C-alpha cells in the first residue's frame, strides 16, 4: 500500500429487515503499489463510539470479535 487516499464512515440501512443490507463500517480508499485503488472496510466501527459523551478517541480502530479489514471495492 502506497498511501491512504481518503477515509470515511458509512452508517445506514439500519431499518432494513435484512441485516445484510445494513451498513456500519469505516472505509479507507488506498493506493496500492501497483497503482490499483481499492476500498477496504473495517466493520464494527461503532463499537467504540457508544460512549457517554458520544465520542471516542479510538472509534476507528477498535472492533468487535472477528473484525478485520476487508476489500469492499476496486476503483477504476
Amino acid at each position, binding site marked *: 500500500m502506497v498511501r491512504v487516499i*481518503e477515509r*470515511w464512515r458509512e*452508517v*445506514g440501512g439500519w*431499518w432494513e429487515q435484512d441485516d445484510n443490507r445494513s451498513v456500519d463500517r469505516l472505509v479507507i480508499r488506498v493506493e496500492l503499489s501497483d497503482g490499483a485503488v481499492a476500498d477496504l472496510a473495517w466493520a464494527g466501527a*461503532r463499537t467504540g463510539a457508544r460512549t457517554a459523551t458520544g465520542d471516542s478517541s479510538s472509534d476507528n480502530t477498535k472492533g468487535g470479535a472477528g473484525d478485520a479489514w476487508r476489500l469492499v471495492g476496486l476503483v477504476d
Partner: protein
Amino acid sequence: MREAGALKAKPAFASFAPFAHLHVRSGFSYGFGTATPEELVAGASRMGYSSLALTDRDGMYGVPRFLAACSREEGGLSPIVGAEVTIEVTVQLRKPCVRGHLVLLAYSMSGYASLCKLITAYRGYRGYRGYMGAWTKEQGGQPSPSGRRDPACDLRALLEHAEDLICLTGAVPHGLLPRLMLGEGTEGLGKARYLLATLREAFGADNVYVELSDDETAGSRRRIRAVEELARRHGVPTVATGEVAYLYPEDHRLSEVLAAARHLSPLPPPLYRPTDRLYLRSPGRIARLFHDRPEALQSAAEIAGRCEGAVRLGGNSMLPEANGYAGAEARKRLISLTIRGARRRYPAAFETSRNEAGALPGVLPGVFSSQAELTKRLKRELSVIFTLGFEGYFLIAREAAEIAWEMNVPVTGRGSAANSVVAHALHLTQPEPFGERLVFERFMNEKRSDPPDIDLDVCSELRDGVRGELMRRYEKSGVAVAATANTLSLRGAVRMAARSLGYTSKETDELARNVPRHIRDRDQPDGASSEWDVALSSPAMRGHPLQDRRRYALLLELATKLEGRLSQAGTHTGGLVFAPKGMKLSEVASLEASGTRGLVRCQFDKDDIEGVLGMPKLDLLGLRTHTSLRKAGELVSKKLGRRMDPLSPPPDDRETYRLIRSGSTVGIFQLESPGQQSLQRRLGARRISDITAGVALFRPGPLTADMVTPYVLRRNGLEPYEVPLKELDDILRPTYGCLIYQEQLMSVASRLSGITLAESDMLRRAMTGGGGGDGGGAAKMRALARRFVDKAVGRGVPSEKAREVYGFLEGFGRYGFSAAHAASFAHISYATAYMLAHHPAEAYAGVLNARPGMYSPRVILNEARRRGVKILGPNLHLSEREFSVEGDGRALRVGLSYCRGLSKRAVSDILIERGKKPFVSVADLCGRTSVTTGDLENLIGGGFLDDLGRGPGLGQGQVRTRRELISDIQALPRKKRGSTRGQEEIPIEHPEGTSEGSPEGSPASWWALRQRSPVRELAGAFSAEDREREELRVLGLNVGSHPLSKGRYHNALDALGVVSSGEILSLAHGSRARAAGILESLQSPPTKSGRPIWFLQTEDTTGLLQSTIFEGVYKRHGHVLYESGAYLLDGRVEQDPRRGFSFVVEKIRALDEALSVVPNKVGISVGMGA
C-alpha cells in the same frame, strides 16, 4: 458568568479549547434535531466547552430555554444565539431554485433583532410577500402549507436584515455555498462567487466566514478542500464547525426517523446522508479533524468571543403599551376607568350619606367597612401596577373585554387576577375581593420575579372574533399568539416509527391502537425493566400485535426513544403576546404563520414568554361553558320575551343550592365529576363560599393529602376544631380552621410575623415550589422557618406557637389553591346550576349544543329525561340545526347537526329549502339539497325522515317504513360528496379535541365506541331493537328511551339479580350487589399510596354509577372493559362516613355475554359487540 466558568475544573481534553460549536441544532429544528437545548448545554458543559451556539433551522423556538439552561449550568456556559436560515436562489432560469442554508449568529442585541425580523419576514408574517413566490398576497398574505412546512428565504430579504450578524456559508455539503459550487456546474460556481461577494457587502467583510464541516462521509475531505479553495481565492476566512443534529452518535436513527416523518416518506428520508457523525463532538475530536486547519479553529474561537453572552432576554422593559395611551396618559386612563367601574361595583361607597367615621351603613356585611378602605386599597393596587409598569397591560385586557361586550360575547376572568379590586372594578373579574378575602399581593407585588397575567374566559365559539379584532388593533406594533412545544406521546411515537419503517396506514393504526400515551412512573412496577413491559401487560393491550416483541423489536426500540422528543410547534390559540413599549414585537421574538388564516404565532413557547422573557401574555381562553350558557340564555330570553343574562343570576337562590346539594350535578361547571357529585352531597352547599371551597378542594393535591375529609366533617359539625391562635380566627374560621387557600397562607404569615404580604407571597412560593425561581431546597426552607419564627417571637408570639403555626402552614401550604381562581370558577358553577334548576330544557339544550363538560351527549340527554324534560325525536321539518326547545320549555328536540356525516352545507340547504316548501319524498330531499345518498341512509336511520313515510303523497293511514324509505334510495342516482367547498362533516368531537380515538386516561369510552361502531347492514330488518341500535349509531343518543329501560331488559336484568345504580347508592356498608350499566368513562387518577386504581363510570336508567377497580381485579377482568361497551359488575358497597360511598368491583363481565344465558335474552344496543 465567564469568570465563573474559568474557575471550573475542565476535563483533560479542554486544552483544545477555545473551540466552540457554532452550528448546533436542537429538537426545535423540527424534523431532524433530537436533543433539547438543556441536553445540549449539559453535554457541552461535560465536554469542557465554555460556550455553545444554538442555531435551529428557520426558527428561534428554543432560544429562551437555551439561555435559561446556560445560566443554570454550574460554572456557566456562555450562550451564542443564532439560526440556520434556509435560502433559496435561482441559478438558471426555468430550472428549479437551489436551496441551502446559511448560519447567522448575533453579536449584539441589534443582531438578535435583525435575526428575529428576518425569520418573521420569511416565515409568514402577514403582509410579507415572498420574492421567489413561496406565497403571495393572493393567498391572503399567508404561506401555503408546503411553504410553512419547508420555508425558505430569498436572498433579497436576507440582505435587508444583515445588521450585527455574523454569516457562515453553511455546512458541507448542504449549506448554500457548498450546494451551489458542488452540485450546479459552472453556473452554480459562478453563483457561489456572486453569493460570497454579496454576503460580504451586506454583512461586512469581517462578518462572513466560509464554513468547513466534516460529516466524515465518502468524499467529505474532497468537498471541504473545494470549498476551502474558493474561500482562499476570494480572501474569505474559514471557520470550523461541528454541524450538530443530535447529542450522541446512536441518535442518528431518531433524527432520520424524524426527517422521514417530516417528509411523509418511509426511510431513508430525502437528502439522506449515511452517517452518525452529526453528534456533539468533543473538542479533541474536532481538533483532530481540523488539525491541518488551525486558522479555521481559530476563527471559531474568535466568533465565539464576539458572540457569547451578547443576547440577553427579559427585564422590566418588556411590558406592552395600550393603543393611544402612553406613559402618564395610560395611568390617567386606568385611574379613570377604575373609578368609573368602582362606582358601579360599590355604589354605596360613593353615597354622600355616611357617618363621621366614614363607615357605610348600606354596605353589604363582610364587604368592606368604609370608603376610606376602598380608596386605600385602590391606591395601593394602582401604585403597584404603575410601579411595575402594568398600566398598559391592564388597559389592553380591558379593551379585550370591551370588544367582547360590544360583540355580545360572554367573558369572565379567572386566575389570581381576581385578587385585584382594580380588575374587579374594570369588570374583568367577578368575585368581590373584600367579601371573598382576596389578597392583591397574590396577584402582583414588587417582589414577584415573573409577570402576572390576566386570563379571560370567552365563549369558545365566538372567541376567535374577539381575538381577531384585538389583534387587528395591535397589528401595527405586533401581536401574536404563543407557541407550544409539542412532544411525542408513546402512541404518537409508535405511529411515527411505524410509518417511517414502511408500514401502511392501516397497519400503523392497528399498531398504535390502545398504546398508552405515556407510561407514568406510578404505573411502573418494580419488576418491569422497560415501559413496554408495563404497556404490554396492560389488559388494554391483550392480543395486541405489538405483543410479538421479537418481530417489532426495532419499532418498539424507536418508539421508546422517540417518546418525549420535540415533534412540532403547536399554537396556544388563546395566549396573546404584545409588543413591548416602543418596540416592534418582531424585534423581540420571531413570528410565523400559525396555519390558521390570519393568525400570527410567536415562535417562543407560552411558558418561556413569561418565565424567560418576562413578557406578560393575555390569555383569551375559549370556554365551552360560556357557549353553553350563551345558547341557553338565548333560548330562555326567547321564552321569557326579555333578555336574560345567564352570567348574572340572582344571588343565593335556594333551588340552585338544593340542586347542587343533591349531587345531581351533571352539566354544572366544575361540579359534575363523580367525585364532585359525591363531595357536593356531603358538603351541603348553602352559599357561594361553599362552592368555592368545593372547587379548591377537589384537586389532586388536597385529595391525595386527604384535606377534604376534615373540611367536610367540620363543615357539618361532626368534628371539633380550633384555630392555632385567636389572632388568626378571622382568617381561618371561614374555612373551619382548614387552610385551603394560598391567600390564607399569605395572610396568616403576614399577620403573625409582621412580614409584608409581598414577602409572604415569596414564602408561599418557596413552600409550594412555585415559579419565579423562588423554590428552594431544605436549607432555604430551614432559613425561612427560622426567620418566620424569630419575627413572630419578636412580635410577642410564644416560640412554641410560632413553630406550630409554621408547621401548619408548611403542611397545608403546598396543597393550597388560589381562592381567587376558585371563586371565579364558583361564580360560573353557580350560574350553570341556576340555569339547570330553573330552565332545565334550555340549559340542557345549551350543554348538548356546546358540549362543555366530561359527559357524552347520550348521558346528558338521559339526565334531561330523568329531570322530567321530554325528548322529541329528530324530524326533517321540525329539527333545527342544533338541539331546540319546544312545548313551552318542557321538551328538547334533536338537531340536524347530530346526524352522523351530514355536512354543514347540507344542514343549511335543508333549513333553507324546507322554508320554501316542505319536502315530500326522499327523492325531493335529494334533488333540492346537497344531501348525498349516504347522508340519506343516515337521516333515515336516525329517524329524521319518518315524516316522509307519512307524507301527503300517501293514502289515508298508509305509512312507509324506514326500510321502504331506504329502498327509495336505490332508485336514485348515486350522489357522493363532491369537492365543493363547505362540505365538511359536522364533527361530533371529543371535548378535548383528541384525534386519536379515545381521550387521555379513558381507553374505552362513549367517544371511542361511536368512532368504532360498525357500519350497519342496510338489508337488515328494522325491528324495534334495530331502530334503537341504528339511532344510536347515527345520533349517538338514545332518543326513545334508555337502552336498559324496557320491560324485557328489566326482566333479563332482574333474572341476573341486577340492582339499579340509584339503589346501590343507598345500600348498607358491606352489602354485595350486582350492577349493570353502559360505559361512560374509565379513568386512572393518581392516588395517595401511588398504587394504580381505576374508576369506571357506567350509566343505567336511574343514573350514573362510579365503580372502583383495584389492580388485581383490573388485571383479571380489565380486558372486558376494552372489548365491550356494557358490563355486569359484581362488587361490594362501602359507606364510609368520612369518605362517602364507593362500589368496589370484584368481577366484570360483558353484559351481552351475561344476558346470553338468560332465557328470552335480548342484546344491548351499545358497545363494540353491537
